[in-house]
């Protein structure tokens, strides 16, 4: 009845901040630092860098270490730190390596156009820089540009020995209509693979597991996921993939066991909260609130790199299909992985706006991407659009 209009203006103001307080107890712990944040090697490198700020090779080492930490912890703060160290280097005559690192960081922010621009410059300086080709391939693949991705992958496979090139090629072929043969070839390759670096092997097994999932072979998929996870905690990628696999099969307790304690990564926290909600655990409520706050903060920052996750959050935890559809559609403009197609289809169906999914159907038909998880959704949408 009584409208308090001007107070609504204070949405941005101190009212939106929480209740600050003075702790009563000196020994109250306010923050637990992440274990590897106190990484000895990193600290040593940074000390050296402070002493010799113009040492480019040293700076690159620091950047690489930050990036590795960021991936392992799934914590974006490290990427910000990396960017800060890289920024002065990139200003004056950046080398191909520095440009590639900057592209990697841009791609992590989902700023694909900047990343591709940097990669083009890097490859102009050093046409045989494998890392740049690989990054370029990955970006094209995420954008759904499979012919370009394949070209870059082929260059890698020609230039470099080892798994990377082959996995890249098979992964793109699998996305563009050759899922079965690519899957068989990759499985064979991994069965005879020798001592490759751990990161490459983990990536390869995870890709294989996803392929198996997309073919509908759940047993094989599980085996491959476990194989990937057994290699160690190098990235959140296999964790997220396996969690989704378990969620699809309603194995919620296992998801909770897998992801308990994963608070820093929004994507993992979301999957954890979803499983907890389905199980009726009390923590689900708090985790959901945390996620909502984080997404709101990201929006305030002007950060839109997480719309896919947010769309899933809106649909599956918040029960707002319309908002989910808006986010999923915006996300689809930027990236086109099977996961992105899936959330758009699900949101369109839930919101009853089947027209919104027409583009996805066209994309899938045009590229030949197969995914057993999408089949049912596609049929429903196609039926309504016909």
């Amino acid at each position: 009845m009584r409208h308090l209009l001007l107070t609504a203006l204070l949405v941005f103001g101190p009212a939106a901040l929480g209740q600050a307080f003075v702790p009563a107890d000196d020994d109250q712990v306010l923050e637990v630092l992440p274990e590897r944040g106190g990484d000895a090697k990193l600290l040593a490198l940074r000390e050296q860098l402070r002493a010799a700020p113009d040492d480019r090779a040293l700076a690159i080492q620091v950047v690489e270490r930050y990036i590795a930490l960021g991936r392992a912890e799934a914590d974006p703060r490290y990427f910000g730190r990396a960017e800060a160290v890289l920024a002065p280097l990139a200003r004056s005559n950046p080398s191909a390596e520095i440009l590639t690192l900057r592209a990697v960081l841009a791609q992590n922010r989902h700023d694909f156009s900047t990343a591709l621009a940097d990669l083009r410059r890097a490859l102009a300086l050093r046409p045989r820089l494998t890392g740049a080709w690989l990054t370029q391939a990955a970006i094209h693949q995420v954008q759904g540009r499979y012919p370009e991705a394949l070209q870059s992958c082929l260059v890698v496979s020609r230039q470099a020995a080892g798994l990377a090139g082959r996995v890249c090629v098979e992964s793109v072929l699998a996305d563009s209509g050759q899922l079965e043969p690519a899957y068989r070839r990759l499985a064979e390759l991994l069965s005879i693979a020798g001592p490759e670096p751990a990161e490459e092997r983990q990536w390869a097994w995870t890709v294989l597991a996803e392929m198996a999932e997309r073919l509908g072979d759940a047993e094989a998929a599980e085996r491959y996921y476990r194989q990937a996870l057994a290699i160690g905690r190098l990235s959140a990628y296999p964790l997220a993939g396996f969690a989704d696999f378990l969620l699809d099969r309603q194995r919620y307790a296992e998801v909770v066991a897998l992801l308990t304690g994963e608070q820093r990564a929004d994507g993992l926290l979301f999957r954890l909260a979803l499983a907890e909600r389905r199980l009726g655990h009390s923590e689900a409520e708090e985790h959901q609130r945390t996620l909502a706050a984080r997404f709101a903060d990201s929006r305030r920052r002007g950060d839109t790199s997480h719309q896919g996750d947010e769309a899933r959050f809106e649909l599956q935890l918040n029960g707002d299909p319309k908002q989910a559809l808006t986010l999923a559609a915006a996300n689809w403009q930027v990236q086109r992985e099977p996961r992105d197609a899936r959330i758009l289809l699900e949101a369109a169906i839930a919101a009853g706006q089947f027209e919104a999914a027409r583009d996805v159907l066209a994309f899938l038909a045009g590229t030949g991407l197969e995914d057993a998880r999408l089949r049912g959704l596609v049929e429903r949408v196609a039926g309504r659009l016909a």
Partner: protein
Amino acid sequence: MRRWLGFLMLIVASFSASAHKASDAYISLTWNGEHWVGRWDMALRDLQEAVGLDLDDDGRITWRELRERGDAVTAHALSRLDISGDGRACRLDGQGLRVDEHSDGGYAVLDFQADCPATVRQLEVDYRWFFEFDARHRGLFSLVAASGARGTVFSPEQPTQRFELVADGGVWPVLAAYIREGVIHIWAGYDHLLFLLSLLLPAALAREGRAWRCKSSLAEIGTDVLAVVTAFTLAHSLTLALTIWQYLALPSRWVEAAIAASVAVAALNNIYAWFTERRVWLAFGFGLIHGMGIAGVLLDLALPKSGQALALLGFNLGVELGQLAMIAVALPLIYWGSRQRYYPLWVLKYGSTGIVGLALVWLAERGLDVVILSS
């Protein structure tokens, strides 16, 4: 080369699982009527990087550790924030640390004051905290002045922002804002309008015995309307001012219930015709109570201490304008309708009955503090 290649690969494969809460700080600057008061939330993880907090190196930051580094934190932060008013730098004074918990961990809360003058027209804020450590750090800034709240996001690419404030010399925008508030409030306050309407429904009729007859002269009708509206306006303006200046303070629940009762009485009066010639007194008497109710909204708007009179004037003006608008629409209809045969029965009697019903529901809701009709 192999090592580097492998490492890069693990980067490219990490899209979907990347996390998204990067480094943010939250700064707010508020004019509280006497000073510019600031609050600055900084993540403890970031502070650890910037000034070092974990003194005993055990991977945990305790309140004691933060307190002991309090001066360093304050000096580091305030040296990277510049606020100037109308081109002159404002001095920033730290006033102590507290803590708070955000969605991604613990934060130190630095309270500070800026000595920019009260009459400043333009504030320029320059923010450089933590960018040297983290290129993705963002400063989420909000400014709350008498003229409203503004916000911005500071980044390495955009570390400076200017805010135009309305100085006390710029009267019109503030006045206009409060006039607008007054109009909106009176239109949203159905009970006020309904009370006035109930009093005006019989304006074009005169009571004769048990029947109504049309008043013949326009002048008669006009005087009647003018008297009622003026009485109501005078009364509610009076108590509005007295309540805002805190000479009157009745519990709002009582006031709201009394307002509902007034609507019922006014409508019942149209049915039972207790006061027909002296509706003016009804208007004045209950108008006093309505004024206290209207004041409630204005109090909630947290008037600035300077320019309170202006806000009050503007708000009241807005209320009157809103009223006048309603009367301008309703009066011709009442005049025309009163000439029809069905008016006394259908509009005056049954219409008023409906109003009584609604008013009684409000009375029950407000008196008993329940919700019957969702607003």
